């Protein structure tokens, strides 16, 4: 099963290596990992999605909590959180395909952010499923390059871990 955990960490060198090391040590493959600033310049927030069974995940979460640079760790359950991902995709765009691509992009509320004679770059923000769906739709034209940020997530409702 895919799990999403969101550690709040100190904004210091080496924190990423320490965190990622706990996963690799146990043979876990990280599906995606994002890090970015919070509203507090001393803190960063990560969103890590990882495949694994509950027991091992609990162990990794506890180990993460032991790291001196990790302030807190929360697991985000799909039903109780929202998650978004950004993807930019360079798709082959021959003259005859161009309008169809534009149509798809508009229907799924993505955006074209670059156009050249033989390609377009499409930008899309959404849940992983939606991003996945767009990728499938664009594949028929030929995907030349694809970059995804990995998911950022947050628990629903008023409770918060702080700025």
């Amino acid at each position: 099963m895919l799990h999403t955990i969101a550690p709040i960490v100190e904004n210091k060198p080496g924190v990423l290596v320490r965190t990622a090391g706990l996963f690799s040590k146990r043979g876990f493959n990280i599906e995606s990992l994002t890090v970015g600033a919070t509203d507090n310049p001393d803190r960063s927030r990560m969103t890590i999605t990882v495949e694994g069974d509950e027991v091992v995940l609990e162990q990794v979460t506890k180990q993460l909590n032991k790291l001196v640079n990790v302030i807190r760790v929360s697991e985000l359950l799909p039903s109780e959180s929202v998650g978004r991902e950004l993807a930019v995709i360079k798709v082959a765009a021959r003259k005859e395909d161009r309008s169809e691509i534009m149509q798809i992009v508009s229907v799924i509320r993505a955006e074209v952010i670059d156009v050249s004679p033989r390609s377009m770059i499409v930008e899309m923000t959404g849940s992983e499923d939606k991003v996945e769906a767009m990728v499938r739709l664009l594949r028929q034209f030929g995907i030349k390059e694809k970059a995804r940020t990995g998911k950022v997530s947050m628990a629903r409702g008023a409770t918060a871990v702080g700025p």
Partner: protein
Amino acid sequence: MSNMSGAEAIVESLKLEGVDVVFGLPGGYILPLYDALYDSGIRHVLIRHEQAAAHAADGYARATGRVGVCLATSGPGATNLVTGIATAYMDSVPMVAMTGQVPSQLLGTDGFQEADITGITIPVTKHNYLVRRAKDIPRVFREAFYIARTGRPGPVLIDLPKDVTVDDLDFEYPEICLPGYSPNLKVHALQIKRAAKALMEAERPVIYVGGGVKYSDGHKELVELAEKIKAPVTTTLMGVGCFPEDSPLSLGMLGMHGTRYANLAIQEADLILAVGARFDDRVTGKIASFAPQAKVIHVDVDPAEIGKNVRVDIPVVGDAKTALAELAKAVEPKVWSAWNELVAAWKRDHPLFYAKGGDSIKPQFVLETICKLCPEAVIVTEVGQNQMWAAQFFTHKDPKHFISSGGLGTMGYGFPAATGAKMGCPEKEVFDIAGDGSIQMNIQELATAVINDVAVKVIILNNGVLGMVRQLQDLFYEKRFTNTTLGRVPDFVKMAEAYGALGLRATRPSEVEGVLKEAIASDRPTVVDVVISPDEKVSPMVPAGASLSEILELEG
């Protein structure tokens, strides 16, 4: 205080932390610190190989309960510390290791004697630091010592680029501010209540104790609890000494080379109270069949240990000493029961034993004789058969008197660790129980011991082979003794003499006591070469991966 160099700030920090001795070896990039140490009043012990600096700091820490400190230069000096740091990490030993580093502007350029030691040691330290500014030194040192000794103790490494030790700063020792680090020391009253209730209801309880009791100084509370409810107590290798082995409630050590009765008791128990122990594979054997009938209460200061290897019914996060004291208060006294009778019968029927008589010296007899002559001795061990015999055939009673590399199983640990232990406790008699394989891994430390007048007694159980591995080949590899026969072993008596130590030898059983007495009487570092048979075995034995019920009795 203001305007001192980084190196002077380090010395000042060490003094504020109460450090009286550091173990190390200098090199180019750590020289500013050595210069500041020169007339600091802090004793520096010059070892002969950096690995020994880490082991000596480790032995000092285990024997005294204080933070052990070692230092080395950058590059190879730092990487040589790694085995010692990993050893301390696996056994939760409080240690601060300092390493020199190339100047900041050379970091990451493959400069001369550069190694990314913070990167290398992330998996084997509790925490580590690469100090980037001289003004951070007081904070980093304060945090490092605090992290090393609190909660579940462990090694912390501080990497010091040369310029950082040279630059000036205004010294101020700050308050600790670590938002991501708060060791759980208090125990939850409700969990204690639940645990106490389970202990009262149990008919066949066993207390299973590890190194956590040692580090929390909880042995008195352990004895109080065990005696109040008449619960048998077994210890892991790390817990040896936490419960007096001459007590009728003692089961000795459990696990792979544990006593038959400890393993029987575990397998028949209806309740296990695990305290400061981590259900290591050498203890549990095949995990699925470990203690099949037992409910498990697990007390540990490290929440990550609870539920890691076995399912736990009643978790108690917190300090072992506090938890044991609270439990002892919460339970009602119990009387000697049918369970105690059964355990006593197992102890009677399946004692640790070895074949006596014959012309060759029995290693078990050597340990028994040391115990008879010097029951209060600190026993430090190398790793392998010597280690298991030392755990089994010496009657351990004091938690700080048995020192051994358990988790990592580091050959070459014992002698430098014994040196560190003796420096921490000069009034105590300290033995290193060694094999001829292990001792050769750090034999150069004889020079350190001799020059510093550290009268450690090294007892080499010399069988000319890598005995524990040979035993595995004997049992599981059709006696195909590949690369376990050492061939020519040096003359350890002459070697001791070459270093300026006293060398003694025993080749017949009748010589053992006399030679040991001579060693004990010696006020110099002393090496005793005790010649034993290569076919001696550690018994009993639970083969790796087997259930504790499948224990084998082996003849030497």
